[in-house]
């Protein structure tokens, strides 16, 4: 609170107001240093600071600081403004001559300003204080009333937790969930979907296993090819010798191991087959029964669902259920393997170009086909790598040897142009494989003769263009004419062209109508 003690009533309020600058205003409103250890300062109108009511100051200092005339007392208790217009510090003697004059003039200025402000502020402050007090009381009451349900969300959460706890307590007491009734569509649909999903999983796994089994199968054949050549080149003729050979012994063990895995995969395949068929049966039986539920009685839906649940649990493809068993138990006898290899070695051909062919095969399997045209012997491994190479045209014009397994694998290659101009003879088996090849052009210009059986097989090929420019003999020519008549484009030497024309009886080459089904 501010209280003004006025000594000079004649002082003009306006004069006093004009005499004050902004620093004075801050003095009036800011009780700086009130609680400070130094007791604060009082600033004179001239801007000088004087210590105000310093308790620890000497008695004479306190006496000098205490005005003897009218003073303006700050609203803050304990601060007295003792302005001194003479500019003297509070340390000056109290009986300084200018002091009374100053004390007379300054309160007049302050009093006029403070009086006006306080006169205006007082009712406002009272109202504000009343409102503040009212708000405090109301807030207290509100908080007091709100205390028991301070956080409804938390209360709800607690209730839910309590319910959950109660439910958990009750759970062991509750009976087992019964199978869905016949009219519980959603439960049945869920079961049937579950069967479908599991069956799809099993079938996908079956495909994976078949792929793996085929890989092992080819792996066995590839090693057998190499081993047979090695046996032929080394002249080994007994298993005991073979097992002592550092190169051959790993081949034999590798064949045995891969064969064991290949055969061992039959077990999970059978298990998957059984599971997928049983699941399909249960699903179909359930569908048959469900479609009759409106018009039939005594259909045993409970038994149906129990069997379905049991099958779903039984045929989950876990690692244990898919296990192939101990490979050691599946190992084929080494004697059997040796006998087979010995037979193959008799048919194997050994050439001086084999090392180079192996290098090229290695490159091909690394994705480099640059030296493919130099390959003379196509092994199964090379054929597999080519089939997966992604190339669209294969030119192997020095190729003169190809194993049956390699020929079969090569014809799975999804390219367009197969150029095998180095092949001197075409076996019927190879021709059969070629007839199933899905490409467009075959060049076999190295053939001088085409056996009738091979020509008959080749006539079934659905491709567009067949080059046989090396043919000299007319055997099988009627099949070639037939193939051409079905829409294929046949390239043969002029002599054979005339023969074909004669066969047709027209004196000119047969037309090439686009036959249905030809690519």
């Amino acid at each position, binding site marked *: 609170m501010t209280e003004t003690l006025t000594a000079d009533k004649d002082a003009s309020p306006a004069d006093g107001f004009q005499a004050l600058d902004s620093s004075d205003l801050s003095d009036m409103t800011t009780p700086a240093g009130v609680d400070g250890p130094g007791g604060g300062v009082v600033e004179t109108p001239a801007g000088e600071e004087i210590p105000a009511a310093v308790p620890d100051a000497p008695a004479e200092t306190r006496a000098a600081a205490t005005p003897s005339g009218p003073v303006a007392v700050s609203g803050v208790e304990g601060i007295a403004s003792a302005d001194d217009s003479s500019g003297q510090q509070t340390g000056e003697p109290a009986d300084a001559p200018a002091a009374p004059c100053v004390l007379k003039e300054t309160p007049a200025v302050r009093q006029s300003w403070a009086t006006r402000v306080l006169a205006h502020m007082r009712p406002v402050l009272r109202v504000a204080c009343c409102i503040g007090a009212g708000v405090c009381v109301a807030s207290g009451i509100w908080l007091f009333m709100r205390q028991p349900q301070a956080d409804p969300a938390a209360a709800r959460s607690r209730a839910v937790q309590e319910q959950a706890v109660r439910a958990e307590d009750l759970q062991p007491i509750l009976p087992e969930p019964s199978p869905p009734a016949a009219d519980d569509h959603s439960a049945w649909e869920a079961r049937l979907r579950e069967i479908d999903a599991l069956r799809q999983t099993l079938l996908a796994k079956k495909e994976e296993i078949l792929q793996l089994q085929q890989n092992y199968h080819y792996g066995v054949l590839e090693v057998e090819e190499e081993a047979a050549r090695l046996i032929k080149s080394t002249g080994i003729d007994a298993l005991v010798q073979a097992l002592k050979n550092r190169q051959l012994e790993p081949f034999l063990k590798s064949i045995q191991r891969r064969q064991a895995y290949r055969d061992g995969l039959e077990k999970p395949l059978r298990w998957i087959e059984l599971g997928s*068929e049983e699941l399909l049966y249960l699903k179909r039986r359930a569908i048959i029964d469900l479609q009759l539920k409106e018009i039939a*009685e*005594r259909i*045993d839906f409970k038994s149906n669902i129990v069997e379905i649940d049991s099958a779903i649990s039984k045929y989950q493809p876990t690692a244990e259920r898919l296990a192939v068993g101990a490979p050691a138990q599946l190992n084929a006898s080494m004697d059997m393997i040796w006998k087979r290899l010995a037979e193959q070695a008799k048919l194997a051909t050994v050439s001086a170009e084999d090392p180079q062919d192996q290098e090229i095969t290695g490159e091909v399997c690394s994705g480099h086909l640059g030296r493919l045209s130099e390959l003379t012997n196509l092994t199964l491994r090379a054929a597999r790598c080519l089939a997966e190479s992604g190339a669209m045209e294969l030119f192997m014009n020095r190729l003169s040897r190809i194993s049956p397994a390699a020929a079969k694998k090569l014809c799975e290659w999804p390219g367009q142009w197969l150029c095998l101009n180095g092949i001197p003879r075409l076996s019927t088996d190879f021709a059969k494989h070629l007839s199933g090849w899905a490409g467009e052009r075959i060049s076999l210009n190295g053939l001088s003769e085409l056996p009738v059986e091979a020509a008959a097989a080749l006539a079934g090929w659905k491709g567009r263009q067949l080059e046989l420019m090396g043919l000299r003999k007319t055997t099988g020519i009627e099949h070639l004419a037939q193939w051409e008549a079905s829409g294929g484009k046949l390239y043969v030497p002029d002599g054979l062209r005339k023969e074909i024309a004669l066969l047709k009886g027209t004196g000119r080459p047969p037309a090439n109508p686009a036959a249905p089904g030809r690519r």
Partner: protein
Amino acid sequence: MHRHRVVSAALIIGFTLGVWCAGIAADDGKVQELNRALSDIGSAEQMLRQKTALAGSVRQLLRQQADELKAEIHEARRRTKVAAFQQAVQINRIDYNLRLVQRLFGYIDRLDDRIGNFRSAVQALDFYRRQIRDDMLILRTLNDADTAGLLRQLDADLNGFKAQAERPLLTASAAGLRPLETIWSDILQGK
């Protein structure tokens, strides 16, 4: 005395008229009963025909499903080249499909029985309808006919037919199913 005669004659005439009117009323009641019986026969017949149609459509559906399963069996047989029953049931698909066909044939046979029963009931109702029409003709002509026995029998049969029609069309049971081997032989013979 004269007055006494007049009163007596009036009483006799009144009595006669009463008896005659009562007779007419009784005959009208019989006609109404017979008409009501015809209506009941119509309703029961309609219900039986609806049930027959429903059973027939379900039977056709089941037959179609059995044919599809048999086609799968043929396909599996071509693939595996089995002919003997003992070999055939070693093939999972053939074995399971034979069991499903057996189940379907069981349902179809029961539906055939029910359809036969419904048709017999409809024939019986038609027979009743003819009898009732005959009795109505007699009532119109002779003003009298003994319909009580016929209506009693009709009521009993109608109740029986209704009860039969309201029962489920099928009662599942493992009894009476055709042997799997017989089904396999029939499939081989293209039946």
